[in-house]
């Protein structure tokens, strides 16, 4: 009896194992796509729909297989490791702006130039490839764009006696004092995790002080020291525990409506419209407005300069099989089709380096982001994108040391500079 049971159990397990293995047609081309646009990412739902539709349209010929990865850092680690070990995935998303050229020069990715020259390139915004092509060849596509205007809670500003958003940093700090006096936090800062919010605030201040050419001299530009002073001052007007806080703390405070100003990319806009974040039926977006970076007195910024970045690049591994190369390009062309991108932008709030007509249903906040983007007199990358990865790795340590008076503003910039030099 026991033997029969054991045999049955073994058979069931073997059958289960075999049944769970994916079955592909012999001549079906499989495109492996480790994707970060999954889970709770605002782009996930439409991305999933596009993949489903693409697979259905190409049933038996091409199949895109998504490997889900929801953690950005783990995703970066995985992709970097696969590229390093010569096993770059068929398709992946890259976001470490400073390393893109090195990846493009590595020769491990597919040269997309011939396909782009056949007309596909017309779908992309003008000059999109200028900064990322190597010897005139495009192997990595700038795809998801990000701009960083300020989103503010109109009701909190009103409660603090402000009926408009400050136009200068002097006014901004007066507003911070008033908001704090009214029992709210002026803005969310975080030095924990990757210090994302503080990094963005620092980028805005650097832009306001140093203007469009602020990165020309690297960290030697005095704007970086001056901006560190301003950033440190901002920590007086944020919530308790900002030194150890993470993005979820910053987001949580803004959603809880105890923080006046929020700074993040367009992918976060969808959260403003979520019913889960509504209070008494009033969506967060209904009490929010969008503003540009204030002008810094004596600074080189003109109030219309915009901090931006390429939030996501698409890259495809070099293929030996021409049929597979064609299949990967077909999928890339499918997801960068202007009509689909328009719907994608509508559903997610994200922005893309694709020329598309925004849907009339585009949210008001998204429209304002686009308007600010279109009216920008110039753009600069955020500091993480403008400097080597060692800068962003060191930034949380430098910010926390600055805020906790372990170093002064010069020491802050020195620490970042040293980190970059160590990596060279």
């Amino acid at each position, binding site marked *: 009896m026991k033997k029969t049971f054991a045999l049955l159990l073994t058979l069931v397990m073997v059958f289960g194992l075999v049944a769970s293995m994916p079955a592909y047609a012999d001549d079906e081309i499989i495109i492996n796509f480790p994707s970060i646009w999954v889970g709770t990412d605002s782009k996930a739902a439409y991305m999933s729909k596009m993949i489903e539709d693409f697979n259905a349209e190409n049933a038996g010929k091409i199949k895109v297989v998504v490997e889900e990865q929801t953690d950005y*850092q783990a995703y*970066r*680690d995985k992709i*970097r490791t696969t*590229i*390093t070990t010569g096993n770059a995935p068929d398709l992946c998303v890259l976001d470490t702006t400073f*390393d893109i050229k*090195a*990846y493009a*020069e*590595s020769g*491990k990715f597919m040269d997309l130039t011939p396909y782009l020259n056949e007309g596909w390139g017309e779908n992309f915004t003008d000059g999109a490839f200028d900064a990322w092509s190597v010897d005139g060849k495009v192997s990595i596509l700038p795809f998801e764009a990000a701009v960083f205007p300020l989103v503010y809670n109109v009701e909190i500003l009103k409660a603090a006696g402000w009926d408009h958003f400050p136009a200068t940093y002097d006014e901004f700090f007066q507003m911070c004092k008033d908001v704090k006096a009214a029992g709210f936090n002026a803005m969310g800062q975080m*030095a*924990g*995790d*990757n210090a994302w919010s503080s990094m963005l605030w620092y980028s805005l201040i650097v832009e306001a002080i140093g203007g469009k050419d602020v990165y020309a001299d690297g960290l030697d530009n005095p704007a970086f020291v001056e901006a560190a002073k301003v950033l440190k001052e901002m920590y007086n007007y944020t*919530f*308790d*525990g*900002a*030194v*150890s*806080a993470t993005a979820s*703390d910053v987001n949580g405070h803004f959603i809880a409506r105890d923080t006046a100003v929020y700074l993040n990319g367009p992918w976060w806009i969808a959260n403003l419209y979520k019913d889960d974040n509504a209070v008494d039926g009033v969506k967060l977006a209904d009490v929010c407005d969008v503003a540009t970076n204030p002008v810094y007195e004596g600074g080189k910024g003109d109030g219309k300069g915009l901090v931006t970045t390429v939030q996501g690049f698409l890259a495809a591994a070099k293929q030996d099989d021409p049929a597979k190369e064609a299949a990967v390009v077909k999928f890339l062309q499918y997801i960068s089709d202007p009509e689909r991108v328009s719907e994608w932008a509508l559903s997610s709030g994200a922005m893309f380096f694709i020329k598309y007509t925004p849907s009339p249903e585009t949210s008001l906040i998204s429209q304002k982001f686009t308007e600010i983007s279109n009216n920008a007199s110039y753009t600069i990358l955020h500091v993480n994108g403008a400097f*080597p*990865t*060692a800068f962003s*790795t060191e930034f*949380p*340590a430098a910010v*926390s*040391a600055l*805020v*906790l008076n*372990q*170093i002064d503003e010069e020491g802050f910039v020195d620490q970042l500079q040293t980190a970059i030099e*160590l*990596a060279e």
Partner: protein
Amino acid sequence: MKLERSDRGPLIAFLLPAIVVMVIFFIIPVIYVVVVSFLKWNGISAPIARGFKNYLLLYKDKAFTRSVINNVIWALVAGFIQVPLAMVMAIILSRKPKGWKFFRTVYFFPQVISGIALATLWRAIYSADTGLLNGLLRAVGLGHLARDWLGTIETAFPAVLIYWVFYIGYYMVIMMADITTIDSSYYEAAVIDGATDFQQAIYITIPLIKNTSLLTCITLASVMGLRQFEQVYMLTNGQPANTTSTIVLYMYKKMQDTNYGVASASAVVLIIVGVIFIVCIRKLFEGRSEQAKQLRALKKARRAVK
């Protein structure tokens, strides 16, 4: 013992699989890491030899120095606070007081929860504005002591370290298993001689587990302390101001920077620190083992007299 020639064949046959696995999965990777530690390599471009420069950079980097110090503190705390705590509990529970099974389960329970989950839990407990700890302090009128535990230079590292010290279940269970193998006649003889529970623990239990489970636990705990990563990564990511960083976290960050040469150099330093620790622990216990030998000889003699 000298091996007979005829025994060598089977011996080699039995050892070979283990040796092959060891060479493939340990020796070769270690050699690879050592080689990369002398290179400048971003994982994409061709590597460039740079001699000892990566080690020089480590020496100059305050964050790395801080990481080494933190790891040494961690390993010492693990070996000489966490394990002795586990030993005390093992000795108490081995005497099977009322509810010992319940307490054994309670102490062991955290071992079945992932370090990431525990770190997340403690992150919530330490949170400055919504944390349980600060809430508790405020509730009992000690609100002035409330602070950003993980965001203050003075408290961040102790906060990361202190909760972990009390997770003693793993070592406790190992030592309990060892204690149960001690011959009960020793304790019976000690009771007849009028020895208290404390004296029995000091003069019988500890000497008899010292060179077996206690040494194993101290070695294991110290090594675990040296390779701390996930708790620190989840709780503080090495902040504030790198005060909670560890060597493995430092190494991870250098890999994020695609600076594989420096990352490998820090891995080599970790291996060296680990070897130094293990040798020191062995030496420490070797020095004392003579006493254990004498004790065993004494017991043997007493048994013979009886």
